[in-house]
Each structure stands twice: as C-alpha cells, then as structure tokens.
C-alpha cells in the first residue's frame, strides 16, 4: 500500500506495522504528530496497542522499560529536550537489556529556544548503550523501524535503538511511502519472546545491586558484546529486508558513488539528499566525489570506514552538532577509526547546519571547494557560514 506520509506519520505507521504492544510517549515539537497520529490510529480502531499518555519523557522511557521486561514490544518517540530529560532512563534501558525502539526528531537544544534541525540531542546520548540509526527519507523511517525491532530483539543483541529524523526537513516533509503488507511484515518480525521476564510463575529480580568484585563490569562488558553482535545483525537484517521488500540501505554505512571517488563526504540525516544532488553537479564538472552516509552511529561503522579509506584520498566530514571544547563527534570518530591505518586519507571536518540553518547545494559545493585546496596538514574543524556581528 502506498501512502503520502510525513516523517512523523511514517513513524506512527512504523509502530503500528511493527505491532508495538505498549507505547508510552509525551508530545514535543516537532514530534507531536507522531503521538497524535498514533492516537488517531487507535481511536479509529486500526491499531490495537496500550498507549500510556505519560506526564513526561522520563516516565515515557521508564514505562517502556518496565513493559519490555514483561515481554511487550514497546515504542516511544521524542525530540531534543525530551530526549535529554530521558538520559538517565536511556542508560537504564540498555542496562536492563530491553529492546525499546524510539524515534527521535533531531532538534536543537535550548537555550536559546530553537525547534529546528540539529543532531546535538542524539549525539549527546552516544554513550547510553543505544543503537543509533539516522534516516534520510520517510520511507527509510518505516523500513528502519521494522529492521530495528529485528536487530534489537535478537537475543545476542538485546539492546534498545533510536532512529533519528531531522526536525522539519524530515519530520514535516511528505513523500510517497510504500508500506509492505502486514502479513509479510509479521512474518519478517515475528513476536518478541524474551527468555526471562517479569513473570509471577517464575519470580526473578531485575537489576539488583552488584558489588565491584562481583558482576558489574561483566554486565557492562556484555552490553559491548551486544553492540558487537549488532554490527553483524544490522547488516544481515538490512540485506534480508532488501531481498524481501526491495529496499535496503547499506547496513551501517550507506555509500553513494564512492567506487572511483577521490573525495568522500561523510554525513548523516536529511542533508544527505542535498549532498547527493551536489555530487551530481560536481561529477558533471569532473570532480570525483562520493558520499558515505552514516546510517548507524552506534555501533560505529569502524570496519566500513577502514575499507572505504583504502581507495580514497580525502574524507570531508560534516557534523550537524558540536562537542564544545572538542569538535564534532563524527569528525572525531572517523579519525579515530582510521588512526590504525598506515596509509590514511586526509580528513577534514565542518560543522554545518547547526540549529537548522539551511544546507543548500551551494553550501556543499563551497565545502568541497574549500577541501580541495592544497593540503594544509591537520586541520581543525571549521564552522560553515557563521554570520558576523556587523551583519
């Protein structure tokens, strides 16, 4: 079935098609349409689920974790301030090994108030033990929700996942979305049946105290093992989804026109569509440029970057966030992944589109022109297009 859906509506349909059994969410711009659409689908009798209209995002995540421990498939959605409020519970979800799936609308963090696209909110959650996907299209949102449940509920992974969509550029942009038949999705996903759960017939405790000499480090290490398994699971599930439904997204790192590229742009989210258009222009002018879209940031596509780096002269990394006092996380992590290679490409970093500032084809072209200038050695990350006070 094909429908015209915004990124927000795609998220709501994704939750319905995945048959999320418990949903617990709190509204925030620009995510509100997700909770409203879910409420509509339930009110119209199309979606049978328990929707807890909680009083905060912190409670939203707490309720999802507990519901998941009972054995329910759970879903939530948030953005920016809401995601930051959840931070404590994000750690709780991964520590509890609950495969909660969440859509996050990437929105700037206040102050000053801003509701526009910026990835600081989700990048700031990178150490919470969550798998992180970044989507480029509304279609990818639906498809990735399906894939995420398969990956997260894999007993060797058992971790939560967040899917990010850029505020407005994706959340409020409508496109034709193909929804696969429910029976086929049911067959693809199966039901969630955890081995251990909160169960009166088999009383167990979840999350009891553990001393330094007992099992705490081992529990943490097992989360890392889950992440390592996730690398394989994400690739496999994406391929399987492709063979069943005709769409796959390159696993962790989505490569575009990289075969003969000298320069590869690294980015995530909605700007990648603009980058594709810029690449077409640049290619027609003879510039051999491609793109590596970070589709999954956690687990980090370390191996995929190393493989890519073999044949590339330079990587141009674009961050729509910035770690104050350091540099953009993508820039840092790409460099870290490549460090063990003896023959490394030149890596340059640009902070761009912060707080939703528009990224045009022209923006991308000017970044590439800047990067093609002769090697100036190790370069600090540049903030693109900053205004000056006199303006």
């Amino acid at each position, binding site marked *: 079935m094909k429908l015209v859906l915004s990124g927000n509506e795609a998220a709501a349909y994704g939750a319905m098609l995945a048959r999320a059994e418990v949903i*617990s969410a709190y509204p925030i711009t620009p995510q509100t349409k997700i909770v409203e659409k879910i409420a509509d689908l339930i009110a119209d009798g199309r979606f049978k689920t328990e929707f807890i209209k909680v009083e905060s995002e912190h409670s939203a995540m707490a309720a999802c974790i*507990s519901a998941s421990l009972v054995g329910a498939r759970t879903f939530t959605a948030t953005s920016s301030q809401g995601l930051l409020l959840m931070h404590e519970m994000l750690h709780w979800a991964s520590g509890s090994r609950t495969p909660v799936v969440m859509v996050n609308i990437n929105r700037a963090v206040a102050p000053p108030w801003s509701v526009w696209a910026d990835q600081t909110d989700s990048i700031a959650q990178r150490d919470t033990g969550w798998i992180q996907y970044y989507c480029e299209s509304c279609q990818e949102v639906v498809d990735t929700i399906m894939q995420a449940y398969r990956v997260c509920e894999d007993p060797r992974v058992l971790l939560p996942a967040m899917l990010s969509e850029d505020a407005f550029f994706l959340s409020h942009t409508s496109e034709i979305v193909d929804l696969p038949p429910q029976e086929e999705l049911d067959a693809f996903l199966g039901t969630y049946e955890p081995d251990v759960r909160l169960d009166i017939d088999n009383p167990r405790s979840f999350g009891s105290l553990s001393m330094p000499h007992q099992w705490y480090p081992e529990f943490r290490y097992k989360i890392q093992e889950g992440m390592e398994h996730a690398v394989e699971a994400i690739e496999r599930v994406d391929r399987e989804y492709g063979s069943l439904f005709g769409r796959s997204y390159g696993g962790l790192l989505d490569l575009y026109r990289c075969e003969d590229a000298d320069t590869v742009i690294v980015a995530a989210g909605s700007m990648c569509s603009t980058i594709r258009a810029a690449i077409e222009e640049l290619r027609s002018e003879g510039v051999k440029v491609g793109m590596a879209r970070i589709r999954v940031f956690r687990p980090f596509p370390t191996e995929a970057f190393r493989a890519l780096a073999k044949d590339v002269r330079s990587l141009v990394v674009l961050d729509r966030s910035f770690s104050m006092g350091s540099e953009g996380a993508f820039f840092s992590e790409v460099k870290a992944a490549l460090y063990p290679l003896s023959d490394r490409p030149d890596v340059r970093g640009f902070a761009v589109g912060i707080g939703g500032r528009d990224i045009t084809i022209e923006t991308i072209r000017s970044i590439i022109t800047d990067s093609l200038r002769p090697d100036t050695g190790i370069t600090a990350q540049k903030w693109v297009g900053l205004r000056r006070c006199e303006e």
Partner: protein
Amino acid sequence: MKKTIPDIELMERGHQACLGCGAAHAMRYLLKGLGPKTIAAIPACCWAVIPGVYPYSCMDVPLQYVAFETTGASISGIEAALRAKGKKEGTTVVGWAGDGGTLDIGIQALSGAVERGHDVKYVCYDNEAYMNTGIQRSSATPFGAWTTTTPVGTTKAWKLSPKKNIVEIMVAHDIPYACTASVAYPEDLIKKAQKMKDITGPCFMHIYAPCPTGWKYPPEKTIELARLATDTCIFPLYEVTNGKYRITKRIKDEKKKDVLDYLRMQGRFKSLDEGAIQSIRDHVDFEWARLLRKEECFGEEQ
C-alpha cells in the same frame, strides 16, 4: 486459636536491613496481604539494598529495581504490558518506595499513574528521611526533626517546615482507595492490603516504618514507637474509599498519649525546646481534629 495473620511468607529470611528496621516488617506484612501473584517495582531507597546482592534475593515475587523517580511510571508500564499480553487478570502490580521516592522526586510519576487510573497499588514506607543516603531530610520529615541536612547546630536548625500530607494529595486525585497503615498494627495493614488487591484501579498505602538508625532509638523499640505514633495521633490509621473517610484505629480522648512520650524516645528530637514541643502538640491536635471532622462529614453511611 484463629490466626489473624496469614502464614504465607513471600519475604524470606536473610535480608540486609538494619536490626529493628520497620521497613522490613512493612514489606513482609504487605506481601502477606497482596499474596504471591504480585509483581513489584522498587526504586532507589533502603529497599533497593535490603533484598540482597545479585544473585541473591529474599523476595519470592518478581521484582524490578527501577530508577529513583520512576516508580509510578514503571508500574504503569508493567500494568499496561500485562494487559497487552492478556495477563493482567489476577495479577497485582505494586510499586514500593520510600518517602523520598514518593513525596519528593517520584511525586510526578505517582501523580501521573494515579490520574491515568492504572490498576496499580502504590505503597510508600515512610521512615521520614532519605535513609539510604545517610539520613537527609525529605518532605516527609516532621517539623523539629534532626537529620544530616537539618543538623540543629547552635541555631535550632532542625526541620522547620511541616510534613507533607501525601494521603490528602492522593485523595485530591479522586483515587479509589488511599490509606495509612503501621507496622505496629499488622492485622490492619494486611486487611488494607487485601482490600487494595481486590479493587480495580489505583490504590495508595502510606506505611509508618520507624528507622532506629535514622531516628536514633534502640532497635528493639520499633514496634513500641510505631504504636505510640498512632496512640498519640501523630500517625492516625484511616482509609479513604471513594472519598469516604473511615478511621480504622479509633483513639479515645482519654487514651490519647502525649506527643512528649513519643518525642522523648528518639535522639532526632532531643534538642527540641518547650516552644517547639508545644507547637508539635498543637499541630497534632489540629490535624487529628480535622481528620475526625472529615470522617464526620465525609464518612461512610452508618
């Protein structure tokens, strides 16, 4: 002889509470009332430690340890998931939190859960301070008490504000059932727990749970002290069913003990002067009179 307390034990021996811990008794009695088909959620508090260190536990019911402020939300999630799975029928979901986790940091999640009307039971064991972190004041700490953050000092810097009335806050939510209970009156506590189990919808129980470590009294005095709290009308036992008040432990005027008997037993009140003691006495009398009036005006029909 007819037994007044059920034999069933769902809290085993081998817990880690201090000697004389009121909260340990409270859990044991509560579970006797709720029975084995119970799922519990416990946030950060003494009771996050009492059951034991992984992989040991004194608890015979399934238990999720939850974040400090999330008890209300966590039990909402458990209840919703049980319903989604068709397993809610016959299962009791209970949140068990300290006064800090209930009256302070967890009050938002509790309020949300009760307002939404989940079929959950929320039990607050009240030891009148943050004990797990070493006796800091909470909004349940009564006027006049010493804690490490109301340290008296040389300026009478004891707790200056009154104790928050959580049962009235619950009543203001139109909750189907709210009650107080005490470890000194186990039959009353268990009867109320059984009542909660049989009600569909949110219920709240506020248990008075003396803490020898934090209140500075000998551990063998826990039950005596709890009994005095009720007999002085400092902690009256009552229940509110659909807005109707009923006092379950009636204290006759001539039997009512003086607050001084209660205060004198505890080191945390040792610095109080006459004026402070009198103001506690006045406050207790006022609150007790108010409760009697509530029962009179909004009691169950005789």
